[in-house]
């Protein structure tokens, strides 16, 4: 648990000293508008909207990771569990001021869930009542892309998707993150 505590401390410190704050409604409304516009542009094809959000997040993640590293000055994580703590306690903390719970590890330590008790992106949101959005749209899907993009830049290929969302009437908002592999393109040929 020490890596989690350490991560909490780093996140707390950065949040207090290094992070510029903006009005939460500005973020919420901006993001909401983007999603609503996408839904309109894609004519209610929510699978496509999910895909676009993920792609947008991916591009954000690839850039945001540098900011994360430059600010936090943390070293490489020794294992995926440590990575999960960093994501939750430092990453989400400094960018959204939340710290989703890391839980539901598989026994091989390659998959975990993030439970979002709060989600600033989804404040005020009520999904369209067209009978499909409730089943098809993952409103905060951009976050999956952010994680994928950010971790890819630090040599981790992951897959992330939401499995439940309070917006859909579920009890919790849960994202499932699975490590696919460590990317080793820079690996010297003689390594094990």
């Amino acid at each position, binding site marked *: 648990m020490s890596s989690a505590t350490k991560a909490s401390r780093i996140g707390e410190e950065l949040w207090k000293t290094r992070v510029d704050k903006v009005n939460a*409604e500005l973020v*919420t*409304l901006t*993001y*909401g*508008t983007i*999603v*609503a516009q996408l*839904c309109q542009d894609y004519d209610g094809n929510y699978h496509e909207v999910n895909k676009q959000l993920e792609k947008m997040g991916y591009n954000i993640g690839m850039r945001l990771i540098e900011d994360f590293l430059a600010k936090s000055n943390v070293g490489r994580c020794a294992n995926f569990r440590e990575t999960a703590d960093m994501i939750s306690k430092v990453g989400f903390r400094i960018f959204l001021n939340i710290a989703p719970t890391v839980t539901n590890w598989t026994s091989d330590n390659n998959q975990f869930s993030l439970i979002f008790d709060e989600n600033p992106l989804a*404040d*005020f*949101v*009520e*999904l*369209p*009542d067209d009978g499909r*959005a409730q089943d098809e749209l993952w409103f905060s899907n951009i976050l999956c892309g952010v994680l994928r993009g950010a971790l890819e830049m630090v040599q981790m290929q992951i897959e992330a998707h939401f499995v439940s969302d309070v917006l859909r009437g579920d009890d919790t908002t849960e994202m499932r993150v699975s490590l696919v592999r460590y990317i080793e393109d820079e690996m010297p040929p003689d390594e094990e």
Partner: protein
Amino acid sequence: MSYYFTILSPTDVPLFNIAFGTSKSGGDGIARFRFPDTAQYMNQFIIHSSLDVVEEAQWMNGNMYLKHIDTYPPASAYISAFLTPSGARFLLLHQPPQLPSNSAGAGGSMSGSLLLGSGGSSSRASASSVAANPTSPQTEEAVRQFMTEVYENYVKTVMSPFYRQGMEIKSSVFRGRVTAAGRKWL
């Protein structure tokens, strides 16, 4: 006391309406207007007819809550109004079960649990009851609390990215919250 609440857009398009009865003094929260069930549109006529008064009253002072602004004696319907800064109007029609002069003496005839299907009086009047007197300070205050709470929820609802300005409010969450506010204050 029975209530009919409606939200009108700045261009007088109805965005939301709901009818409910009092929950105070043993009320069961079910609206029982004096019109026959076939004439519920009367509520809408009466409430819309007060819009002229709202337009006059809105310039009288800077408050958002305009208090009781209009009465329609034939149905003993009382209208209270609340303005949002963006120009939406919240109108609440309240109608006592009997004429206000009678209702003071009609207290205690039945308890709320026995009211199902009785169609008549739904309030057990007492001096401090909201239902007793539509123009009393207590009622004004209760309506103000109700309006304020609805306003807070209205703001949250129209902030939903999927709500377009001027669109009917279909959110069941909002309806639930208005019902809860009605139960709490009226």
